[in-house]
């Protein structure tokens, strides 16, 4: 039983799927060298016709993956920075996502987009610190934000096997997390199935990605005083509404914490759906980045813009009032 690191989990998922299915291939920048660790060793093992170091042309190789998918491949794309999803938004949202319906079901586009180190990486500042998973939730592209190495493995495997495009965000804030698991026990995690990291009876805290660990710390801190259920959706789209309904039925209270901007973020969606379809005994609260947030460079400013443990504690205490 060895400690599994987050990057190793992604690396193993890729390796296992490439061994299992010759259609799986990887495109990206510097993936031969494995700079982001996710692709370490894959070039040597599978060769350059399955591990393709691409030039700095994200838009072209993102659409190239579509063409390869139309011809039977299952490409995985690694993006070095989250904002490359802005650059390739047309290719993902307007091309890959729409092809199945537009062709009347003639084709599917099983492409997986992986962003290792999404969200703030201290010091990378404005254009390298985005966490745009809510954008893909809005356009309807399947979106996973694993909080742990085990889920990172299981969700990447499921993403690769899925018939549709899937974006997987590996939050920089979760990259240091390690799991005590027997790597032989790792298995696929279905898209759309939440995970209760900690059961509780007073309030449901829906936490996304690295913030799951903040939520768990807060739950510990409040232990005895408030019984917090920590609910990790694992995929923000599709979202496990049934699982959340069960949790809310138990607690009747809701707080969300996630690292996307406030307006039209996943926090808003969770509160909206719960208010429309479930019953709460107290008004819900969400903790997010501010509206329109741009992360400033200086560390104390960067931190000030991100959701914090303190904000979560206050929110929980407010809904318990």
């Amino acid at each position: 039983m060895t400690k599994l690191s987050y990057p190793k989990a992604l690396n193993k998922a890729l390796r296992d799927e490439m061994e299992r299915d010759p259609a799986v291939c990887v495109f990206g920048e510097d993936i031969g060298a494995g700079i982001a660790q996710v692709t370490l060793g894959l070039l040597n093992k599978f060769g350059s016709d399955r591990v393709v170091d691409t030039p700095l042309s994200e838009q072209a190789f993102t659409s190239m993956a579509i063409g390869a998918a139309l011809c039977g491949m299952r490409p995985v794309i690694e993006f070095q920075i989250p904002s490359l999803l802005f650059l390739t938004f047309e290719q993902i949202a307007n091309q890959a996502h729409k092809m199945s319906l537009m062709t009347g079901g003639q084709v599917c586009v099983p492409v997986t987009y992986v962003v290792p180190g999404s969200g703030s990486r201290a010091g990378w500042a404005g254009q390298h610190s985005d966490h745009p998973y809510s954008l893909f939730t809005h356009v309807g592209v399947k979106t996973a934000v694993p909080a742990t190495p085990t889920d990172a493995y299981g969700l990447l495997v499921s993403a690769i096997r899925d018939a549709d495009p899937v974006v997987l965000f590996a939050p920089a804030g979760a990259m240091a997390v390690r799991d005590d698991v027997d790597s032989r026990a790792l298995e696929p995690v279905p898209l759309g199935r939440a995970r209760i990291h900690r059961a509780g009876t007073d309030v449901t805290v829906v936490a996304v990605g690295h913030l799951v660990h903040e939520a768990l710390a807060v739950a510990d801190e409040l232990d005895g005083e408030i019984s917090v259920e920590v609910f990790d959706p694992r995929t923000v789209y599709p979202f496990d509404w049934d699982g959340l309904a069960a949790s809310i039925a138990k607690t009747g209270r809701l707080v969300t914490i996630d690292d996307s901007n406030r307006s039209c973020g996943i926090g808003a969606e969770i509160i909206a759906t719960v208010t429309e379809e479930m019953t709460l005994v107290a008004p819900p609260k969400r903790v997010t980045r501010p509206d329109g947030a741009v992360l400033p460079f200086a560390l104390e400013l960067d931190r000030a813009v991100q959701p914090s443990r303190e904000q979560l504690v206050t929110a929980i205490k407010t809904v318990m009032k």
Partner: protein
Amino acid sequence: MALSAAGLYRRMRLIRDFEELALRLVKSGDIVGGTHPYIGEEAVAVGVCAALAEQDLITSTHRGHGHVLAKGSDPARMLAELTGRETGLNRGRGGSMHAADIGQGILGANAIVGAAAPIAVGAAWAGQRHGTGQVVATFFGDGGLNQGVLLEALNLAALWQLPVLFVCENNGYATTMPVRTGIAGSATGRAEAFGIPAVTVDGMDVEVVRDATAEAASRARRGDGPGLIECLTYRFGPHHTMEYGIRLNYRTQEEIEHWRQRDPLTIQGGRITPAERAQADAEIEELLAEAERFALTSPRPDPAGALDYLYASGMAARAGVA
């Protein structure tokens, strides 16, 4: 698919008459949203596809009816698509700008200019990897030459020596913008900058287009990489049928007349006997009458299935109201 001189004429006649029929159906309201007519450019699609093998692939554009018919789709099912029927190529889900026919090697029209080129590169990459010997032809207009993603695609195809034929349909305009005001340099010069062999040919002469394509295709099949073929052509009609409703004076009558003198059907028609020509015309007329009947009597899709095929995995999307 190798075609005789008469066969080439027949294919072009099919497209010409299909497009005329489509215009009537736009006016009658049977085709909603209008079309980008291909009339005048038939020699490009037919010439290129005549040099391709059955198993070869193409990607198409917003002005794509000609490409789809030239590659071999059933005109009746194409017309059913344009009229939004369940029997259409895309089950009525795609329409004029998204027609696709995987069975015929048509990976799809694309409503975003330039967007199909890198998709074609990906298909060619997969084909090369699988050793299929397939060639992928990607059509785009002169305006497409200004889309960054298409230029990126030229680089990838050249770097990896992929079997892609970049077919530039230079019809002189991107909507109202003349080529000279939109393009610094030339189509061939851009390809050559990436080390891609490029030629400019008379896009009104189907045999010239076919021969140029055949040469590039055999190079590509030999593993010698991509090629670009710039076809000088002209659309006799509007950019889009909406143009019938608004006055746009970006072309002179003289210019239009000048090009009409070089009608690809007249040029190719002159190479076959009057009898062959008359027979082809008659056959097409009958074929399209049948296609129209088929399309207009085909069932419309059931609104309950509006989101069918949204997710290939079969996942159902939440409705717009709980």
